């Protein structure tokens, strides 16, 4: 079974501080993709960052970076210098091959001014 687990239903961070959101997944595949999507109150699903499993280097997009541990099947998201606009639901997602995404249950991030 291909499952994605986000064990933190809610997280909070002080503005300008750093926060890490956790994600683990279960798979028997060797090639796949991992993603973090952000869903603000507007409900739009916004791609934050993507990681190809065959790449050892962790992906980075400005203030967002991941810690990808393939052997441990772990894919955490680090948000540096948190901003009020980062407040949202964050979904970890797993893509085996070129098929449909499997989503975690989400982590609600609150940014405290």
């Amino acid at each position, binding site marked *: 079974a291909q499952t994605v687990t986000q064990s933190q239903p809610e997280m909070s961070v002080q503005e300008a501080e750093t926060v890490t959101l956790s994600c683990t997944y279960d798979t028997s595949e060797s090639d796949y993709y991992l993603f973090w999507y952000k869903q603000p109150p507007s409900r739009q699903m916004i791609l934050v960052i993507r990681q190809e499993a065959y790449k050892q280097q962790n992906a980075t997009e400005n203030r967002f970076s991941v810690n990808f541990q393939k052997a441990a099947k772990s894919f955490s998201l680090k948000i540096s210098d948190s901003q009020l606009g980062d407040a949202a639901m964050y979904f970890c997602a797993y893509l085996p091959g070129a098929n*449909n*995404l499997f989503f975690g249950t*989400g982590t609600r991030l609150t940014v405290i001014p």
Partner: protein
Amino acid sequence: DARVTQTPRDKVTEMGQEVTMRCQPILGHNTVFWYRQTMMQGLELLAYFRNRAPLDDSGMPKDRFSAEMPDATLATLKIQPSEPRDSAVYFCASALRGETQYFGPGTRLLVL
């Protein structure tokens, strides 16, 4: 600014009525997905198409849901008849070769 568009943005209807949701994928993308998001089930795949051909619709209740791609620029999801349990946000996403998926703004459906 390439993006996936969906209409309507919100829809309120009465039980038993037909509902049609439309999606315009990003130009050039050949894979289109329909997802449903509810509080109880989270995000789940309903169906997806590649090069307009349906590849998987196992997540869709077959008796009342249908999904089609009349052409490369339009995907539709229909519910007939609608039921209160269909109330959810329906997302369309598109991808090139099925990799990174880009989502539309979603259609929030409320069936009374």
